[in-house]
Each structure stands twice: as structure tokens, then as C-alpha cells.
């Protein structure tokens, strides 16, 4: 399903309440087994000295493409837009998108390392970044609308899954998650924000979020989505076995590529 600038992203994520399937608490074990079997075929009985780490960014970009969002400025923009999403998700009033995002980020990170990149910008670069971040945040704010607290919004939800005895680690951060796993029907919706236009990489990321959350909670999410603040597009997919099986294949391909590059 492809939606162009929906009026309310949160409503789109929740969808038709009467059409939700029963919650699936049994399939995650099968997905884990598929991953374990596939990893064994790739790695065998050999124990690598350091674990193979798979992240959403590992799947987003292949060795044959260049993602503009992964430039230093693009990464800064992405981090700051994520901070704004976190503030919006709990209904915090934002006076200035850029300043507030930088303030929140400085407090969260603490150590100077990642902030150095921002502090090294000259006045012109900083002003350009501020304008850029503000434009992306305006698009996000208009599309997102108000996130009702009853839908239990959680932002920057982290997950880490160890496979093959810790030789392969799947790491993930979902920008926004709503819904609960304690219901009889599936209601968890995953929302990812990117500052780049949507492409194949965004689709893989959507699937990866669904897979890792299924492994983490042993419960299949209802749907997964990605929103581009560059174009205002929302891609939304119901989570089903075909989607998860594709993600398993993509993770295995990523593990294979990383192994062969060592």
C-alpha cells in the first residue's frame, strides 16, 4: 500500500480496528530457527573472532549504491529529526526544531564524540543544517499529527538479538512504536523516519524492523512503515509471513556478504 502525504500518519498506522488479525505468538520461533539454520550454512562450525553485527543501515545500502543520507551532514540531520520525533511522541511543545533537537541530543549523548561533528560546522554550514532540519521537521509534524497517549507511544525502541551462540548479532532501533503485545488482536505498529527519499533500502529496513521486533517479543507486529521527511511519502505494510521470510533472506545475505569481506 502506498500513501502520499496522508493527513494523519498515526491513524494510518492504526488502520481499521475491526480488521486486525488475532495476535500471532507462535511464528517467531520458526523465524529464529530459519535464521539459525541459514547462519550455520554460512558460518559452519567455525567461531569468528568478532561477531557479525547486522543493523538496519547494513541492509539499507548495498555495496553498489551510495546513500546521500549516510553523508556526515545527512546523519546529523537524521539524528536531529529523530530527536524531534521523540519530543512529538510525548506531546512536548517545540519552539525551535533545530535548537530544541540539538539541546535534547546534547543531553542524551553526554560525551563530546558524536557532538563534535556538529560543533565543527562553520556558521554557514550550521545555518544550512538548521534550515534543512526545520524543513524536514515541518513535514514530519504535519503528517504525524497528535499521537494519543492511550496508544502507548514508545520512541527509539532498541532491540538486540544474539544468534548462533552470539556469533551473529542483530541490532535495531525503531523510531516509534505504538500498540501493545498484551491484546488478543495484533496492534503493534512500527514507524521509521528517514530524511532520504524512499527506495529499495527503505523497504528492507521496514521488513528488518518487523523481523527483529518479532524475535524480541516473540509476537508478530501488526504493521511496519517508513516515512520520508524529504518527500512526505509513507510506505505501510501489514506484517505477514512472506514479509518476514524475505527479511530472513536479506539478513542471511547481509551476513554472507560481511563474512566474505573479512
Amino acid at each position, binding site marked *: 500500500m502506498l500513501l502520499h502525504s496522508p493527513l494523519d500518519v498515526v491513524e494510518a498506522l492504526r488502520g481499521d480496528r475491526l480488521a486486525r488479525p488475532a495476535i500471532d*505468538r507462535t511464528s517467531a520461533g520458526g523465524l529464529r530457527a530459519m535464521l539459525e539454520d541459514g547462519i550455520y550454512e554460512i558460518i559452519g562450525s567455525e567461531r569468528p573472532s568478532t561477531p557479525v553485527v547486522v543493523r538496519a543501515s547494513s541492509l539499507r545500502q548495498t555495496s553498489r549504491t551510495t546513500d546521500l543520507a549516510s553523508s556526515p551532514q545527512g546523519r546529523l540531520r537524521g539524528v536531529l529529526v529523530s*530527536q524531534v520525533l*521523540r*519530543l512529538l*511522541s*510525548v*506531546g*512536548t*511543545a*517545540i*519552539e525551535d526544531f533545530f*535548537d*530544541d*533537537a540539538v*539541546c*535534547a541530543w546534547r*543531553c*542524551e549523548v*553526554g560525551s563530546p564524540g558524536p557532538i563534535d561533528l556538529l560543533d565543527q560546522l562553520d556558521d554557514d554550514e550550521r545555518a544550512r543544517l538548521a534550515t534543512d532540519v526545520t524543513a524536514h521537521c515541518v513535514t514530519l509534524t504535519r503528517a504525524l499529527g497528535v499521537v494519543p*497517549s*492511550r496508544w*502507548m*507511544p*514508545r*520512541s*527509539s*525502541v*532498541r*532491540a*538486540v*538479538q*544474539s544468534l548462533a551462540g552470539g556469533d551473529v548479532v542483530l541490532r535495531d532501533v525503531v523510531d516509534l512504536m505504538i500498540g*501493545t*503485545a*498484551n491484546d488478543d488482536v495484533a496492534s503493534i505498529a512500527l514507524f521509521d523516519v528517514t530524511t532520504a527519499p524512499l527506495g529499495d533500502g527503505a523497504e528492507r529496513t521496514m521488513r528488518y524492523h518487523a523481523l527483529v521486533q518479532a*524475535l*524480541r*517479543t*516473540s*509476537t508478530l507486529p501488526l504493521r511496519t512503515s517508513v516515512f520520508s521527511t524529504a518527500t512526505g511519502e509513507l510506505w505501510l505494510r501489514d506484517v505477514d509471513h512472506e514479509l518476514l521470510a524475505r527479511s530472513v533472506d536479506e539478513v542471511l545475505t547481509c551476513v554472507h556478504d560481511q563474512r566474505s569481506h573479512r
Partner: protein
Amino acid sequence: MTTLVHRRLVGEQINALLAEGPESSAIVTDDHRQSLTARFRAVASLEHRRLDAWTVEQGGRPAGAFRWSPASARRALGNGALRRVMAQPTASITEAVRDEVPDQMLRCTSGRARPGSLAYWLASSPQPVVGLVIAEAANWAIQLGEIADGVEAPWHVAPSDAYYDVAAARTTLRARRDLVVSRGDGRMIVRVRSGSPGRSAGPGLRADLTVETLADARGVAPLRFIGLWPEAGVCLAVDGTMADLRAGARDLVRTAVARRRHASPIAA
């Protein structure tokens, strides 16, 4: 022999962990307490030391200076918000967190908070930081609330962590606890941690079990001490047996020794 049970973090597994626990647990006597005190006194320290499961897991390596951040504030606020929701079920968790933050700030303006406390830090933080703190605390409270909702036995949010001051040994022991689950006359403790469990997670749990037992006025150990790592989707548990308590106490004393060595490397 010590115990360590490993399960996936799903509702049925947690309930099974709670139901399958031992029927009775060990009791720490005055002799045990005096013996532990003597061991800690033997490890001299120039300053007051505070030991917990984290320091045990880190082998006594000194941690960086503590600073308040959204991540370090989330647990106190999140647990407070969940207690608030239990008392007033009509409120959503995010609303409860939003109410919890100004309450903390009021402690500062009313003079009931000390400098350096969470209340002081929140009161001096700009609005975006407070917003981020609310987001982190809401994450914590929603996660803990979801776990607790799935527990079939009676439970309540722990009013505070467990503390035990070792007499005349300049040592304070602390155990994290988030949920207290009742079973018959006994209790089980659930604590939640971020990240994924490392190789020393078992000793960390046993240290928490020991401190929780020492902090109990009657010295009764919890039937089971359960550690949850929601990010990794796993839980570990240790039983309240004398072997586990002894192992926990041994690790705490070893950590005190290791910490002294780190503090004075030449003497070591």
C-alpha cells in the same frame, strides 16, 4: 550448587518462572550477617563504598562519574508513573509520567530535594531535555507495565531499591528491584535491565538476591530473583537458596577487594 534459569521473555515463560520457583527459601541469620561484616571490615577502605550488581558484573572496575541524563532518570520516573497508574487506573502511562515530572520539580521548590538529586536536575533542565526525559520514562513504564500485566500472580511496583548498610565496614550494598510478586507467604523479585545479559549476569543476579535478603528485616530470601532484559527478549532467574546467597556474598566481597586494588594499584 548454584542455580541459573534462562528463558525467553514472553508472558507464559515469566509465569512459568514464577510458578515453578522453589516452595521455600533460605534465611540469613545474625551469624551470617556478622560473618559478612567481618569480611567487609577486612577490606579496608578510605572512603565509603557502594556496591551493587553492576559493580560485581564489572569486576569492581571504577565507573565514570555519575551524571543525570534521560537514560539514568527513566527508571525512577517510570516506576513512579506505574505506581501512579496502579493507584489511578484511568490515567494512561504517558500522562502519569507527565504528572510525575512536575511532582519531582515541586520537591525542589519546596526544599525537600538535595542538590544533585533528580528533582534538582529536572528543575534546572530546559524544556527539550524534560521532553526527552518524559519520552524515556514513558518507554520504561510502558515496557514494565506490559510485562507486569502478563503476570498472573499478585504483584506491585517496588517502593524503592533494597539497601543494606554493613555495620562499621563503610559499605552500602544496593539491589535493584522493580516488581515484587507474591506467592503464598513468599515473594519473588523482578528487576529490569537494558541491553543484553553478559557472561557475568548470573553473578549480578546473585548479588542482588543477597542484598535483597540482607535488607529484609527477618533475613528471608525471595523464592526467586528474576532479571529481565527486554531489549534482548530474555530473562534469567536464580533461586533463593543458601548456595546462591553464599555465592552472591562472595562476589560482593571479591568486588570490594578488586575495587581496593583498582584504587591503589601500587599496593596491589
